[in-house]
């Protein structure tokens, strides 16, 4: 299986560049290339499921010297999430992007972002992590500004400034880590830190890395860019940014660094839980007053990311399972919500809640999809959001963190409150005069929505299966640092 690993980086890069070259002759080729490559990547990521952790040595160099790609349980989970959502987003954007010009460039940027994210999920080298982080970030800055209107440019500039600072902080942290340990390989750093103990410089580096990845992952003190950037992008990109990008660049990188490089300690767990609790509360409070549908969803993302961080910060096996399951669920339902908001925008031309109403008569598939998403995100029983939130709350109680359990339950209730408001404005009531002539969105867009909606329902029934395979291997990978070191350095 390990020979597949470089393809996760090579295929999207090749599709990006080759697509741009051939698009000069035949304009429609970008979408085709993107479709084929994301499809193949999704298949490959499912092939990786269940295979044992493996390591790929780039160019045949042995790990502490060369760059290596590592696929353990956590990476596999991230790859599955990234590539599935990306495939559905590409299917969605084939029709949706007809609202925009310069489609080949859109697909090329999308593929570059994919390459960056897959690289972040796979790499075992600190500096390589930074490089892939920057590839994904730069592509996402450009994609946020893709519409080239006032709001998009402003949002992209804010995102760019904060993202640039975050990248600088990450690079500074990596520089300090290199100066203290003399190596860039994650496993090698972990080994060096565990034998010599963490000194003040490496703690400073850890603080810098937490800040940097915190900005990328929009944890609350560092969240200011997200509610501007995510709504401004085209809808499939919003789905990718909210559903996948902040998880890979923020949460995944943070957990990888904390669990595998520095080693998890209760203090770090407390910091993570504090950040998570703050994100949950602030995101939910800010979401309630929004009139713009996508902006509301963006604030909800902040709040839901808080749940994931809270679960991971608990450090107990159950908490980690809950956090990872919520990560998976959030990727499905938030992508579903952003895509259905895009579909609504495609049909109605607006995203103001106050200008909508009664859409369920005209847009049955879209509204059904968004309803499933709303129910899922607010934690209504048969849907997947309920189970992951429940697991996190139970894990909080089991770890004697009653305050956080209370916060999580309260925020879940709050989420239900603001999504009920959205639902009332969106679906029921009278259809405004201006929206009388709207039609259901094209088939390809409906396809993505339906698949994601089915996933939302299906993941909750698949949970017993997944908790033993996918999530369990990711949890074991996180908790067992020495196995990771042994895998990379070969004992």
């Amino acid at each position, binding site marked *: 299986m390990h020979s597949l690993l470089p393809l996760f980086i090579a295929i999207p890069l090749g599709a990006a560049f080759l697509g741009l070259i051939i698009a000069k002759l035949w304009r429609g080729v970008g979408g085709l290339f993107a479709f084929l490559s994301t499809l193949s990547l999704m298949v490959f990521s499912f092939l990786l499921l269940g295979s044992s952790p493996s390591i790929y040595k780039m160019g045949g160099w042995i790990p502490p010297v060369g760059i290596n790609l590592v696929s353990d349980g956590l990476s596999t989970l991230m790859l599955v999430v990234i590539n599935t959502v990306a495939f559905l987003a590409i299917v969605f954007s084939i029709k949706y992007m007809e609202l925009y010009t310069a489609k080949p460039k859109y697909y090329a940027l999308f593929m570059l972002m994919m390459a960056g994210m897959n690289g972040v999920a796979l790499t075992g080298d600190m*500096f390589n992590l930074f*490089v892939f982080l*920057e590839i994904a970030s*730069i592509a996402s*800055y*450009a994609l946020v*500004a893709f519409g*080239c*209107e*006032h*709001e998009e*440019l*402003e*949002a*992209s*500039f*804010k995102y*760019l*400034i904060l993202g*640039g*600072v975050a*990248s*600088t902080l990450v*690079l*500074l942290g990596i*520089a*300090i880590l*290199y*100066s203290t340990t003399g190596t*860039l390989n994650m496993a090698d750093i972990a080994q060096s830190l565990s034998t010599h103990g963490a000194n003040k410089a490496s703690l400073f580096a850890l603080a810098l890395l937490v800040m940097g990845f915190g900005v990328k992952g929009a944890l609350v003190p560092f969240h200011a860019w997200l*509610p*501007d950037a995510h709504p*401004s992008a085209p809808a499939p990109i919003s789905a990718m940014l909210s559903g996948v990008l902040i998880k890979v660049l923020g949460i995944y990188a943070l957990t990888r660094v904390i669990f595998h490089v520095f080693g998890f300690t209760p203090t770090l767990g407390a910091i993570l839980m504090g950040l998570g609790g703050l994100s949950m509360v602030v995101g939910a409070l800010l979401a309630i*007053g*929004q009139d713009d549908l996508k*902006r509301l969803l963006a604030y909800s993302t902040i709040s839901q990311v808080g749940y994931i961080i809270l679960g991971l910060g608990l450090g107990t096996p159950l908490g980690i399972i809950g956090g990872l399951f919520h990560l998976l669920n959030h990727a499905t339902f938030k992508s579903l919500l952003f895509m259905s908001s895009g579909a609504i925008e495609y049909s109605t031309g607006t995203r103001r809640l106050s200008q909508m109403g009664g859409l369920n008569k005209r847009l049955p598939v879209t509204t059904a999809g968004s309803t499933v998403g709303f129910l899922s995100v607010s934690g209504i029983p048969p849907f997947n959001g309920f189970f992951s939130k429940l697991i996190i709350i139970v894990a909080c109680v089991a770890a004697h963190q009653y305050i956080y359990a209370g916060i999580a339950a309260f925020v879940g209730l709050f989420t239900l409150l603001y999504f009920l408001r959205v639902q009332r404005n969106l679906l029921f009531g009278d259809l405004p005069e201006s929206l009388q002539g709207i039609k259901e969105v094209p088939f390809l867009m409906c396809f993505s929505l339906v698949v994601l909606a089915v996933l939302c329902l299906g993941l909750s029934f698949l949970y017993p299966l997944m908790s033993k395979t996918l999530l369990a291997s990711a949890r074991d990978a996180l908790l067992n640092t020495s196995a990771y070191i042994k895998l990379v350095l070969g004992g």
Partner: protein
Amino acid sequence: MIVYLLTFILFVMGLYCLVAKKNVVKKVIGIVIMDYAVNLLLILVGYRRGGVAPILLKGMDRAKFTTQSVDPLPQALVLTSIVIGLGVLALMVALCIRLYEKYKTFDMSEIRRLRG
């Protein structure tokens, strides 16, 4: 030690420029200053007093070379980081131009359509 402190002062100067200035171009300059401060730190990490350049030329003693040369890895990293910084800079400048085109100003306090 003092050189490390100086790079940190440079970094903080860039951060100050980023936070305190309202002009978007000055903010861009602030980010670039921060970037270069970090690059400088990376180069200093690999520095060795009295070391030789890490280039193997004809007729050099390999054992002596490995003990004397400065660490070449940070230099490669800095080159990569400079390239990435160049890409970000080009994107930022293009965005500044586009922002000016739309808003007719470089003042960040007037570029405020998104709020809430």
